[in-house]
């Protein structure tokens, strides 16, 4: 429903904006010549058209429009695909979608193989003349097998009868298929089927039930035929499977052929036995010849006109089923671009863009589902809050050795088995956070974890990198001493460090925060250094003349002067950290957006993959916009000094 409304809205928005744009051109004063950058100003309506087009392409290629307007179409196409799948084996026997009869192409292929092997034998240096003669004899005998299969006079009556029977079954199916009430379903069957359909659910994510449902319970394409048209195809497919099995069980083996091939096999067997280990080459050639003979034996090779009736029957059925598809064919062509529903055996799946490009409606539903803290992903919500006692924070901040350095001993249990608390013990309780105060809400979840890692890595990088960078910009010793360290690790892509750091510091937060700290540190040092060394000498001279001390010059002149570089550095570092973090979470971890995407990848949960992509994009954008705002606010003088 939502998809339909959105599709219409987008359509009208695009049309409206294009009309508005055209009218604007007409009414606007044309005083800007080509090349004037002013001509690129404004144009919000084109932004709407641009984003609408993106959405429209997404809706179209993810087949969400098909899902919105024809929710049953995937199910019906699945039944059609089942028929095509069942029909495939039979069709391949005839020049229906192929150029030649299967028998013809097989004979061609085996003749070619025999010829190739015969040339090889004749030119071989490792075979003596006697061996060559014997092997060529085998080849000619194998070649002589083929006419025994293709001779119309030799075909057995039993086989003929079977072919006629199968043809009859196909014709009967075609006749029945064209009847309106095929497959003559009873009231009971109908009810059972509809019940099963209801239980199976619709196409994609149709039932969002956060209470009971985990997110893995979506159906790609529902299998049970939901419509009478679908049922028709479904039943026909089952019947076709039986017919097809029957046909492929059939072998065109007459007594002459059977004898000949038996003799040939025995001869080759005896010959191979007579050879010793030194004549392995001849043995191998003999084995290959037997292989070709066997292939000829099991191929469905028939005389040229023996299956004509059957071919006609199959074509007739194929036409009938195409006709029965009716409007469904047009839905398939126009609303299932770049792919379609494909059946293999009993199951159906989306093949093409609809598979890896999740439907906006599905993605939205899954996102709503995942946002619920009770669902989340792998039992962890995306972003939620939990109540944590303040004592935990206090215990974390206060170091435990405060209790250790107090005079006295920790309490020892008495002979009665009672532990009497003393002052030192009480202090230990406080510094380890083992007490109750009041609870405060603390955010947690995948998004929060990723955010905190970036934030902490960045903060540590800034705290250490900025002073060090300023120092390096002003002091020859510092520059020379720290430069090798930084220049050694900085050019290495941060992800190259990840395996080492994660294996040393663990897959949890410590490793990742340290990795991000490394990333941000080098960027902050370089930007702070550039800022410090870029300070105009006259400003420092001025500050000196005004009576500022060294510390004051650092704090009030050099630091603010480097602020533009530092803030730009932070902006770069945030981007780098964000990119590195997601990849680091890919490598190892138990929480975080990158972790979610990595797990989703393993289970082919395309919707989840796209959701994580969106979340990462949005967060990245949020970081950048926030920093841009901060930069505009804090250093308005940038570029104007």
């Amino acid at each position, binding site marked *: 429903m939502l998809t339909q409304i959105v599709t219409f809205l987008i359509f009208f928005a695009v049309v409206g904006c294009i009309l508005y744009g055209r009218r604007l051109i007409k009414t606007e004063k044309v005083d800007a010549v080509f090349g004037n950058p002013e001509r690129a100003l404004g144009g919000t309506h084109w932004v709407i058209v641009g984003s609408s087009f993106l959405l429209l392409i997404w809706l179209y290629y993810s087949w969400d429009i098909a899902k919105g307007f024809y929710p049953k179409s995937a199910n019906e196409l699945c039944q059609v695909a089942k028929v095509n799948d069942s029909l495939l084996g039979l069709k391949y026997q005839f020049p229906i979608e192929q150029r030649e009869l299967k028998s013809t192409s097989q004979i061609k292929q085996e003749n070619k193989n025999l010829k190739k092997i015969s040339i090889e034998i004749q030119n071989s240096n490792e075979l003596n003349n006697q061996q060559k003669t014997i092997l060529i004899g085998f080849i000619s005998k194998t070649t002589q097998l083929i006419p025994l299969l293709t001779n119309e006079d030799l075909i057995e009556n039993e086989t003929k009868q079977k072919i006629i029977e199968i043809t009859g079954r196909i014709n009967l199916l075609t006749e029945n298929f064209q009847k309106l009430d095929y497959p003559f379903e009873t009231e009971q069957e109908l009810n059972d089927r509809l019940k099963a359909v209801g239980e199976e659910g619709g196409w994609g994510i149709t039932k969002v039930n956060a209470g009971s449902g985990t997110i893995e319970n979506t159906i790609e394409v529902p299998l049970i035929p939901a419509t009478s048209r679908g049922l028709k195809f479904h039943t026909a497919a089952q019947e076709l499977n039986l017919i097809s099995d029957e046909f492929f069980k059939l072998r065109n083996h007459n007594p002459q052929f059977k004898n000949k091939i038996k003799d040939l096999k025995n001869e080759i067997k005896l010959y191979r036995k007579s050879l010793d280990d030194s004549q392995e080459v001849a043995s191998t050639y003999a084995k290959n010849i037997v292989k070709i003979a066997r292939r000829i034996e099991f191929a469905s090779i028939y005389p040229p006109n023996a299956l004509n009736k059957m071919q006609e029957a199959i074509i007739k059925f194929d036409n009938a089923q195409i006709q029965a598809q009716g409007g469904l064919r047009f839905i398939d062509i126009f609303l299932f671009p770049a792919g379609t529903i494909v059946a293999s055996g009993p199951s159906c799946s989306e093949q093409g863009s609809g598979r890896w490009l999740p439907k906006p409606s599905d993605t939205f539903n899954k996102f709503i589902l995942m946002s619920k803290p009770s669902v989340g992903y792998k039992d962890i919500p995306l972003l939620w809050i939990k109540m944590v006692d303040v004592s935990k924070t206090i215990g974390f901040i206060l170091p435990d050795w405060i209790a250790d350095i107090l005079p006295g001993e920790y309490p020892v249990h008495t002979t009665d088995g009672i532990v009497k608390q003393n002052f030192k013990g009480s202090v230990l309780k406080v510094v380890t956070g083992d007490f109750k105060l009041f609870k405060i809400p603390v955010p947690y979840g995948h998004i929060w974890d990723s955010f905190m890692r970036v934030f902490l890595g960045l903060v540590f990088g800034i705290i250490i990198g900025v002073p060090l960078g300023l120092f390096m910009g002003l002091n020859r010793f510092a520059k020379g001493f720290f430069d090798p360290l930084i220049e050694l690790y900085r050019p290495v892509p941060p992800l190259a460090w990840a395996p080492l750091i994660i294996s040393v510091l663990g897959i949890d937060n410590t490793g990742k925060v340290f990795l991000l700290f490394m990333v941000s540190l080098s960027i902050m040092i370089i930007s702070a250094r550039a800022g410090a060394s870029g300070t105009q000498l006259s400003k420092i*001279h001025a*500050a000196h003349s*005004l*009576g*500022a001390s060294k510390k004051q010059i650092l704090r009030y*002149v050099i630091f603010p*002067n480097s602020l533009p570089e530092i803030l730009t550095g932070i902006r770069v570092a945030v981007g780098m950290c964000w990119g590195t973090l997601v990849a680091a979470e890919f490598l190892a971890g138990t929480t975080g957006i990158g972790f979610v995407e990595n797990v989703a990848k393993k289970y082919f949960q395309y919707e989840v993959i796209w959701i994580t992509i969106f979340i990462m994009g949005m967060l990245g954008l949020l970081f950048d916009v926030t920093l841009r705002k901060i930069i505009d606010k804090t250093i308005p*003088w940038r570029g104007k*000094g």
Partner: protein
Amino acid sequence: MSDLISQNLNMVFKTPKGETVHALKDLNFTLKKGELLTVLGPSGCGKTTLLNITAGFIRPTSGTITLNNKEIDGPGVERGMVFQQGALFEWLTVSENVNFGLRMKKKDPIETQKKVDEWLEIVGLKGFGNTPTYQLSGGMQQRVALARCLINDPDLILMDEPLGALDALTREKMQSLVLKIWKETGKTIILITHSVEEALLLGERLYVMAPRPGRIHKEYNLPFASMGLKKDLREIKKNKDFSAKREEILEMIWNMEEEIMGKEI
């Protein structure tokens, strides 16, 4: 005795190529309190070096320079400096720039604010206290720089081509301002300039310096600064005496430049 006395001041630089450049050679002069000295000369004659030594940013190779009988061995508040490009702290507002020196000395904020308002009025920037400096025009920025220097009440004001980057009109206004401040505060001022006219107009005394080695080529005592205190500056420029002096000095500098060019070619 609050004189600036220079004795046998020598400054020798080493270029990266290893050549020695004699930026200043045996400079001897005395500047009495309240005098306005302008220094003129072609580029490379050591004007800025002299100023930097006086400010204490660099040490002379030999010789001494004393202010109030105290040898100059580092930058100090008693020697204020005004730079060509203002060298304002663009992240601060006008008043924050002006009170920078007093803030660094942790003076009483209320008193400081009063002084800032006074000085802003003197330099003609009343009401601009909260304007960010990067929004000011070049002339206004120089006014801020002047106020920032003067608020510290220095004994000696060093000006390194303070009006060099201004347009002609603003420059003329600023020249009057410099004269006005000189008269009202009675400070000793050394002003370096490229402009012969400016040097003549503002300088009570004028040194024309010559390059290689940097030395005082000629010394003038001029009446125009005192005249400028009473009269319009443009009137003085029409003065015959003024024109004659200007031509004389211009020719002197031309000859120096030609000498250098001739040597180089």
